[in-house]
């Protein structure tokens, strides 16, 4: 690693867009610099600055020449491919369509990373992303032949390594649902009880739900939250069953979800019109709950409104940092980047006229 250009405590935001990766930074979450537009021309679904190692990762999903994972050891200035990247074997008959997500492993395994792809598969690296192996347990799941893709493909888009148990992990696949392993990935069970599927003949099937985003409570490891195509849910038993926490939200539909790590009953979602996939009415709104979904409140201070305001946010287009008060970050599919430095009380438009934003991730430089 080269020496970081950023002072400790600097918040670095990575915006994966339809046309490259934008790197922004701020020392106070109010004044921001756009430091780089890198990987220009690449379709970046996801990018991460790994706080554990300082290495940066990004997905390059090229419609012509295939998808690849890229690594940077100089905070995005130069990029290279892993020594052994993500490719299926010829014998598998599978074709890599898109790389959706890069998820760092647990804090005490700093060389481990996970990646989720379409077609739904989980990949792991134990050497900081240099070489990648397919997790065979999921590959051989007995229901796999009946999995159906959502509109974005058969994508494995959420990976939650349990911070309390190295053998337990949850994943989210559209449109398969939530799955859990309790044995380090050897076997997987569906974990969708009481989550709805409004687009099939059975409302509560074992699997086939369209989960959109999955997050874990930072101190109560059995508590999970998910934004689903058909509602917002909480589980208090590791996904054995789920409770609908949509309550007073205007609708079921949305893609992203974020959690305030210092107040983990505080969650954020962006409720969207399911047809247009943009905000209801004329006010772009981020919804917040402070009591794990018993009640949701609209946060709008600083967010745009008007007859022409129709903004959408994709599943990885929102995140929160680990600071207190939490910073919340939202990138839209029309190229706006909003930041709230005070857990949703107020919002600033930090950047506009960007390409459509696929993902927003933030890191705090150590």
């Amino acid at each position, binding site marked *: 690693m080269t020496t970081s250009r950023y002072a400790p405590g600097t918040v670095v935001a990575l915006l994966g867009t339809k046309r490259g990766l934008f790197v922004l930074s701020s020392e106070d979450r109010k004044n921001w610099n756009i430091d780089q537009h890198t990987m220009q021309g690449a379709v970046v679904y996801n990018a991460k600055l790994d706080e554990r190692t300082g290495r940066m990762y990004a997905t390059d999903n090229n419609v012509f*020449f*295939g998808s690849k994972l890229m690594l940077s050891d100089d905070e995005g200035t130069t990029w290279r491919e892993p020594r052994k990247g993500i490719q299926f074997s010829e014998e598998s008959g599978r074709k890599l369509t898109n790389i959706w997500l890069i998820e760092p492993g647990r804090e005490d395994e700093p060389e481990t990373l996970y990646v989720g792809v379409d077609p739904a598969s989980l990949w792991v690296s134990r050497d900081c992303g240099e070489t990648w192996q397919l997790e065979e347990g999921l590959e051989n799941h007995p229901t796999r032949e009946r999995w159906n893709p959502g509109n974005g493909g058969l994508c494995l888009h959420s990976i939650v390594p349990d911070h309390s148990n190295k053998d337990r992990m949850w994943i989210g696949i559209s449109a398969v649902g939530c799955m859990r392993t309790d044995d380090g990935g050897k076997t997987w069970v569906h974990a969708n009880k009481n989550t709805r599927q409004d687009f099939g003949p059975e409302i509560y099937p074992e699997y086939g739900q369209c989960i959109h985003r999955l997050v874990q409570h930072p101190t109560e490891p059995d508590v999970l939250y998910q934004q689903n195509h058909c509602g917002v849910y909480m589980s208090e038993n590791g996904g054995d069953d789920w409770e609908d926490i949509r309550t007073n939200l205007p609708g079921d539909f949305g893609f992203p979800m974020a959690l305030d790590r210092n107040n983990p009953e505080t969650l954020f979602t962006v409720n969207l019109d399911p047809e247009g996939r943009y905000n209801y009415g004329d006010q772009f709104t981020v919804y917040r709950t402070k009591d794990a979904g018993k009640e949701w409140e609209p946060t709008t201070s600083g967010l745009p409104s008007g007859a022409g305001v129709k903004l959408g946010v994709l599943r990885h287009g929102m995140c929160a940092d680990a600071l207190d008060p939490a910073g919340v970050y939202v990138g839209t599919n029309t190229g706006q980047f909003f930041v709230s430095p005070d857990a949703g009380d107020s919002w600033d438009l930090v950047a506009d006229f960007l390409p459509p934003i696929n993902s927003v991730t933030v890191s705090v430089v150590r």
Partner: protein
Amino acid sequence: MSVRIPGQLLARTGRRNTVQVEGGTIRDVIAALDRDYPGLGFNICHETGELRPFVNIFLEKEDVRWLQGLDTPVHPGATVHIFHSVAGGA
């Protein structure tokens, strides 16, 4: 034979837009390209060996899809061109 490399793949070839390889068929040419420039084969074909749908390979002026596909014979001294499909509107 000569193989013309498209701009998006020049990072694979050290910025050389024309490279020399040997092979009796287009499939052999792709295998030779991947041997000389690791990763280039994956950019041209899926893991399953099929030509990617938006990659077009021309033997001289003929699209090999209208010849014998990847099994199209290639004669010594030929020029093979690799392009991606035109992509307006996306």
